[in-house]
Every structure is written in C-alpha cells, then in structure tokens.
C-alpha cells in the first residue's frame, strides 16, 4: 500500500493514497511545503486539482478525466456504489480514518429527492489530523456550566469544528474523572481517533442526529452527548427533548456570527429552550493548528437578539 511520506511526515493517509492516481500523489509530494500538513484535497472533472495547506489553496497541474473520476467514485465506494447510495445522494462519503469526501455531480432527482449522482464533477477530500492538546477551554467551559447545559461551537466551514469536538469528546471520556460520553457520529467523521480502550465512550455511527441524540439520552444514560453540524428544526426538537432529560450537548454548527446562527428557526428554538449555556465562535490561528475562542454565554447572546 502506497504511503506518501516526506521527511518523516505522512502527507496523505495510506487508505487514501492507495485509491488516488499515482501521478496525483507524486505531485502532492512535490508541492506541499516542508512542515505543513494537507488539510484538504480537491479533485475536479476536467480541471486542475488543488490542495489546502495551512489555510492556503495551492493549484496542482494534475487534471483528472471523467473516466478517472467515475472510477475513483467506485473505488471510494469499495466497488459497491449501492452500499453508499444514501450518503452519496446526501453529498458525501466517509472513508476509514474519518476522511470525509464531499461529492457533487449530475443529480438524478425524483419527487424532490436526489436518487443518484452521475458524472461526478468534484471530490472534496477533508483529511483529519489528530490534535490531542486542543479544547482545554471547552472542557473548562463544560465543567463551569456544571454539565447541566450544553455548549455550541460555531464557525464557517473548514475551520476545525469537527477536530475540536473529537478532541473534547476524548478528553471528557478519558482522564482521571471520565464521563459517560455518547458521540452521535452521523457522517462517520467524529469516530476517528476515538478508539482508545480507556475512553468511556459510546459511538452511534451513522445514526440520524435526532434519533442518535434521543437514544443517547434515553437508553445509554450519557452524561454528555457530542454531535456535529446540527441545524434543522426536526433535530432541534429532538435536542430539546434530550435537554429535558438533563443531558448536556456539545455540538457544532455552521455560522459566521451569532446573529446569523440564532436567525435560523431551529437554532432559535434551542436558544429559547436554553439548551446551550454558552456559544463559542471558533477562529483558526494563522499558520498554526490551534484555535482562538470567542465565548458568549446565553444571557449575552440573548441580549444581542
């Protein structure tokens, strides 16, 4: 199995490097500056591929043809497209190691629902990186809230919300005073690097968010529920129910600022139900894999509305 390793760094996970064309892997090796890690790899049908490294987009010269893109989709699906119908129609695949692949192309639609994607035009491959030292502030915040109310982390895409949630889940489920943590891993990304046998962690992999949160609260007696990318009204109602069971939720959402976040009906419902004791805006530090936090408690957020 091919490993792209330069100066002791593994640039691409081996499971991914084995699936990609070798000329692309070679160009990645030649392009990534020393000391940097690949955050994202984008492949486009008939256009140049690109990398995101330390927040910068780097154009590659490799262009994948339509046949190569369709072959790659089949390989990403382990040779069984039907086995990943649902997630592909939702626009993503998750590979081993928590690698999320965003997919778009020509959608087949029936009754307003996507029934298939053909002529894949883009793959957006997000590569996770372990970051065990992050999230101290969020851990303290959860304890400060006495584990009775949750914390919502928000930021635009590709800042590192999922990485942060993963790290905090591991910290809360481990250590000297571990909690029973349930991770609702709808897209298969959160479970990466949470395999340590010392963690008191229950992983609900592939469950729809609302159902997973409900199961975690009612049947798994979780002390903390961790969930990524909450958003719609249905999920919000189920989260409110879980909150009424007394289980705090650590979750993430896409938004650039608190007003935009709380303008959404689902988020507004959660805010009015006081599910979250604090809202944390995440900022990625330039040229470093670390975060700055802008923490707003419930009262301060309410005053802004």
């Amino acid at each position, binding site marked *: 199995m091919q490993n792209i390793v330069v100066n002791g760094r593994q640039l691409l996970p081996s499971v991914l490097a084995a699936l990609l064309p070798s000329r692309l892997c070679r160009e990645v090796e030649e392009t990534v500056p020393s000391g940097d890690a690949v955050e994202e790899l984008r492949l486009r049908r008939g256009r140049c591929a690109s990398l995101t490294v330390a927040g910068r987009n780097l154009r590659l010269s490799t262009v994948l043809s339509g046949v190569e893109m369709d072959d790659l989709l089949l390989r990403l699906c382990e*040779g*069984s*497209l*039907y*086995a990943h119908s*649902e997630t592909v129609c939702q626009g993503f695949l998750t590979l081993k190691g928590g690698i999320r692949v965003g997919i778009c192309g020509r959608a087949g639609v029936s009754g307003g629902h996507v029934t*298939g994607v053909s002529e894949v035009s883009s793959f957006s491959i997000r590569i996770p990186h372990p970051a065990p030292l992050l999230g101290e502030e969020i851990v303290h915040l959860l304890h400060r809230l006495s584990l009775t109310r949750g914390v919502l982390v928000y930021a635009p895409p590709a800042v590192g919300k999922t990485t942060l949630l993963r790290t905090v889940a591991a910290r809360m489920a481990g250590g000297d005073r571990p909690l029973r943590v349930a991770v609702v891993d709808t897209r298969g990304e959160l479970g990466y690097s949470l395999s340590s046998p010392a963690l008191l962690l229950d992983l609900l992999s592939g469950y729809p968010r609302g159902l997973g949160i409900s199961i975690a609260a009612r049947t798994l007696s979780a002390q903390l529920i961790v969930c990524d990318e909450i958003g719609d009204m249905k999920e919000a109602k189920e989260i409110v129910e879980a909150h009424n069971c007394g289980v705090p939720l650590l979750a993430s959402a896409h938004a650039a600022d608190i007003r935009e976040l709380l303008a959404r009906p689902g988020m507004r419902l959660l805010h009015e139900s006081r599910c979250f004791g604090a809202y944390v805006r995440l900022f990625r530090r330039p040229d470093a894999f670390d975060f700055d936090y802008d923490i707003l408690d419930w009262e301060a957020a309410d005053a802004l509305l």
Partner: protein
Amino acid sequence: MHYFKPIGIVLILACGVMAGVAFAAFERRRCRQAEGFVALLRHIRLQIDCFSLPVGRILASCDGKILADCGVETAELPDLSALLAGTRLYVPEEMCRLLHDFGAQLGTSYRLEQLRCCDYFLERIIPICDRLRADLPKRERMVLILPMAIAAILVLMLL
C-alpha cells in the same frame, strides 16, 4: 498369452463403465454448480436489499455450502468478477456469459437500480438452471449408457 484377451475385454468394459460414471458425475456437478450460482445471486440480492453490504463482504458472509456448490475455493475476493475468474465453470455457455455480465456491472449502480439488475439476471439464469435440472435424469442415463454401449460394441468386435 491366452489370458490377454479376457483381460483386455475386462479393461475395455471397465473403461466404459468408469467413463459413464465420470460423465454422469460431470452432469450432476454441472447442475449443482448452476443451482449454486442461482443461490449465490439470490444471497447477493438479499444482502443488498436488506443491508446494502459491499460486494466483498457479501461474498465473505456467504454460506460455505453455496460457495462449494459453485466450485469456489475461497470467498476472500473483492468482487464477483474475481470469483468467476478463479472458478472453473461447467455451466452452459449462455449462463457463463450472463454470470460474467452480472459480475461486471455488480456494484456500479445505486441501490434500486442494482436490485432491478439482480432481478433481471436472476430471471434469465433461473430458467437455464431449471432446464438443466429437468434434463438431468435423461442426460445422466444417456452419458452412463453410451460409453458402456461403445465399450460393449468394441468388445464384440474384438471377439
């Protein structure tokens, strides 16, 4: 030297009987392999319908008896095409072609389309298997008797 003739007659008759038995066993094996592949395709369809398992895992989870009937030695294979390539096929030419076509397209379509495809190939393969099974007694008798008859004729010619 006078005992060479009886020995020769016995040998010819024995060859005739053994050839007949071998051909009859071949016919039974052919029928069993056809039934095995029908069972395999049904298993694949069921696993896709109920669990949407990838092809490799479907083959790995298949009952050993079904694979043995198909003449497959190992199920540690990535897909059906690899399985067919590594198996000696005794089934009729038409069924061979259908199996290879099915193997080539298995896994390349979304769930509903894949199930329809499984149904399409099963509809075409099952009648071939049914014909083989229905003709088996007649063919067994024929392949058993024919070599023995030829051996008997040879013996009569030698006498």
